[in-house]
């Protein structure tokens, strides 16, 4: 007789297992009407279902066992019916939702986009430059925009009444004193280099980004306010070749692996030797294009070995230490990177322009 009880208990488990499988499936997607009917037939149908099998077994059970087995079967039946009904309910709600369509939206309507802010392209370009040099161990320094004549000119080997000053037309502050203390708007960020030398001992690796001012009339190629990033490295044994290597490394990280740099001699009072630095035109791979005026090279910065007089003014022994400095215009590089025709676009703040995506 124990065989009958065992058979019924196996059937109860099988029934429950069958339902579990269906319920698991329904978690991913509601069952179809067909699937549900099939499930119903197999579980609690009149013939050849788990339930009908149990009832068959009950019939052949002994009288004394019938009440207990009957209760067991009844409970299994109720549980199965409840679970099937839950699945049916889920299916019904799903069908109703689909049939109703009341909450459907036109998905092609414009989205409720949060207002998206953007960085100014000059900030994006400056940060890219900074990132290149930070990876080479440079730290970013900062200094005043209203400077004295000494920091902006004299300490950097621009003597008073020297024609080298002609190249940098300067805005002066009204009532800003005279001589070396005369206040002016810095014409380059080099005064920050001087302040760094005076406040730090070598080794020095400093980057000085910032706003500078020159009395240029506003036109597509000139603005009286623009942005520079200058760099300074002072240490024992720093060589001109190190400058070339450093700028070549920068060119590769900034303009791509194929970029090369070229030095050409020029004159800046605070460096000797002084060079104009050109980078190979990455737009045309040096085949010659509009941007490089067909030359295959684009001038992007000035550089050189820090003049011994400038090191001395910065309180650094020029026999023991050597250094190099370089400087570039962020605005011009932005122009180059984005193929912009006119610097003025950068300070108009036309949102149609600013809302463009500036790669970073």
């Amino acid at each position: 007789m124990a065989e009958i009880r065992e058979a019924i208990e196996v059937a109860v488990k099988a029934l429950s297992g069958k339902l579990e499988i269906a319920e698991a499936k329904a978690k991913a997607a509601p069952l179809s009407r067909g699937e549900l009917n099939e499930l119903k037939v197999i579980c609690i149908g009149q013939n050849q279902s788990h339930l009908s099998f149990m009832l068959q077994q009950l019939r052949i059970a002994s009288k004394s066992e019938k009440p207990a087995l009957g209760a067991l079967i009844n409970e299994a039946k109720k549980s199965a019916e409840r679970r099937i009904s839950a699945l049916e309910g889920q299916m019904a709600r799903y069908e109703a939702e689909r049939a109703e369509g009341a909450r459907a939206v036109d998905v092609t309507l414009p989205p409720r986009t949060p207002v998206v802010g953007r960085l100014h392209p000059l900030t994006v370009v400056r940060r890219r430059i900074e990132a290149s040099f930070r990876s080479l161990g440079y730290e970013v320094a900062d200094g005043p925009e209203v400077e004295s004549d000494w920091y902006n000119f004299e300490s950097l080997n621009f003597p008073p009444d020297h024609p080298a000053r002609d190249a940098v037309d300067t805005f002066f502050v009204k009532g800003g004193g005279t001589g070396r203390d005369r206040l002016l708007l810095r014409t380059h960020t080099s005064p920050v280099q001087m302040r760094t030398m005076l406040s730090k001992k070598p080794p020095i690796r400093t980057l000085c980004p910032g706003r500078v001012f020159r009395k240029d009339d506003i036109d597509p190629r000139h603005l009286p306010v623009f942005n520079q990033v200058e760099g300074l490295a002072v240490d024992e044994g720093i060589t001109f070749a190190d400058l070339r290597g450093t700028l070549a490394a920068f060119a590769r990280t900034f303009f791509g692996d194929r970029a090369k740099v070229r030095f050409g001699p020029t004159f800046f009072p605070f460096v000797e030797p002084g060079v104009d630095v050109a980078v190979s035109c990455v737009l045309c791979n040096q085949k010659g294009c509009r941007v490089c005026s067909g030359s295959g090279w684009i001038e992007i910065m000035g550089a050189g070995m820090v003049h011994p007089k400038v090191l001395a003014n910065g309180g650094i022994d020029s026999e023991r230490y050597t250094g190099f400095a370089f400087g570039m215009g962020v605005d011009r590089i932005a122009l180059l990177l984005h193929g912009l025709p006119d610097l003025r676009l950068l300070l108009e703040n036309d949102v149609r322009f600013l809302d463009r995506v500036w790669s970073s």
Partner: protein
Amino acid sequence: MKMSLSWLASYLPGPAPDPAKTAERLTSVGFIVEGQEGEGPATVYDVEVTANRPDGMNHRGLAREAAVALGREFRDPGAGAVAESGRPAAELAAVFIEAGDLCTRYSARVIEGIRMGPACAAVRARLESIGSNPISAPVDATNHVLWDIGQPLHAFDLDKLATGKDGRPTIVVRLARPGEKLVTLDEVERTLTEDQLVIADAEKPVALAGVMGGLHSAISDSTTRILLESAHFHPGAVRRTAKANGMHTDASHRFERGTDPLTTLDGLDRAARMIVADCGGALRPGVIDVISVVARPFAAATLSLRIARLNRLLGMEVAPERCLSILKALGFAPERKSGVIGVIEVTVPSWRIDVESEIDLVEEIIRCVGYDQLPETMPRVFVPGESAASSILEDQVRDQLVALGLTEAQNYSFVSRDENAPFVPAGPGEPVEIENPLGEPFSTLRATPVVGLLRSAQHNVRRSRVDLGLFEVARSFGWKEGKVAERRSAAFLLAGKRQSHWSEAARQADFFDGTGVVAGLFAGLGAPAPRFKAVSFPFLAEGRSARIMAAGGVLAGWVGVLAAPLAEGWDLVDPVVGDVDLNAIPKPAAVTTVEIPSRFPGSAVDLTVTHRKEIPWRLLEETVRRTGPVELLAVDANNRYAGPGVAPGFVKTNLSVRFGSPERSLSREEVNGWRDAAARALLALPETRVDGIE
């Protein structure tokens, strides 16, 4: 600067140089050929000569560089012999240098009996090729010498110079006397000041030294006797005189940058020969050559070049023989120092006034070796320091404001005085004005970047972009205690709608969008929430303007709706503007302990309070907080209502109070007790009712 290839070639014996190659090589040694006209021998270059190389601003000097760059011979044929006759020049004129510190040398020659006429065709052609108009043989001769060897000359009509006590026409090099007047060759009358160097005769100024001659003493068609001036002036003196008179001439350009003190005589001879050839006449024997007693006599500088230092500085090896040959070709006199290995003694030629120290010799060598020969190496690695906190903060602020949906702008640092004036009370000090601005619109350093943002907003509104959220992180300026103070701040402007969607009515940006930007910025930087305190600024709308107070009551800027009259001027309606002083934002400590959120959910209760409009939210909030136990976490405003059902002058505020404990669940009874206590405290405020509480 225009330079003729055939003129250069006159100093380069051998076959005619190739125009393209010469241009390329000159550029490579630092004389950048920026443009080129003509072909073959008729080629004329446009050469950029840097301020430190006045010796390259003439054909002989540039030819010397070209010879080195091309690896060719350089040869100067010299002035050639000139026949002299008649009375010695010294009997015909006298020269005195009074300002000995500003004029080191004044050399003069006299030619008599000339017949004015044009220069020969060859000279005229040369001058025309570089864009200089031929005038007359004597003038063209002086111009030719300037462009040939770089010595500026001037030709006076000897008969126009006033005579001194001994009866000789007299030249005096001196400073102008205050108020003295001179009509220069350009027919402009100039009133001179006592810091300007002039050439005078016995009575009056006859030329601005090194800049331009006077009209009265200039040679004319009737001139028969000429005094030729060839001098060496102090660069600063010429620069001051030229600048003071707003003048810039070929002569001043060279004197300002420095001329060769040993070339005055050569210049005189070259010009005299050309004048006599074209105009006849007789060159009188001798040169009146006065050398200042004050000025240091010219002595050639001698510098030591240490080969080891050269190699260490460059990061590459250059053989001593190579150094010797480069320096020799450039006109230096280098010699190995006897007894010392690896040192070259170098005598600097008189025309290379830019070469003052060893480092200048290093540059001479590397530019001739070629910069393309430099290896690419990297400096040694070391542990870098920390970047400036200010620049790190500025970038964090930019990122946070972008996250708040604002777009970064950048504007000029200067604005017009009128645009700036309204904001001065909130700026860092008294307005800072530019002495030499580009014009009135750029005359004043801004008291707040808001001025620039208003300009940007106007630009956009005029282009039908009216919904704006802009910010700028920049500096503002003001005179404070005798110094120019620079304040770093984040300014912003909100105008039009903040967000609009077809599904709902759009809302115009208002005061609370402004305080929201400030609060969001503080939150993003990890600073305690700022408070806002009503303030009255003439440039902000009364009642919709506040000071920003950082923790500890530190003033951190202002925010508000721009006053209507100002806004109108910028084509804006109720823009919200603000300026946050970055230095006043509290900096989070490097190490902070963070409170872990409680495991218990806590609970919240609502209170609806009807009170007079004049009672600020801050008072309601603080009243509730004062009654609260340690379990009181936050007091928030849910809703404000004024209108039908609420008496005029009153407003209904629904506030919620949140309680919680890190240690336990709160019972309904204790929460209700706290709510009642808060309600009773609110009831104690004048004319205040709390719904459901009697």
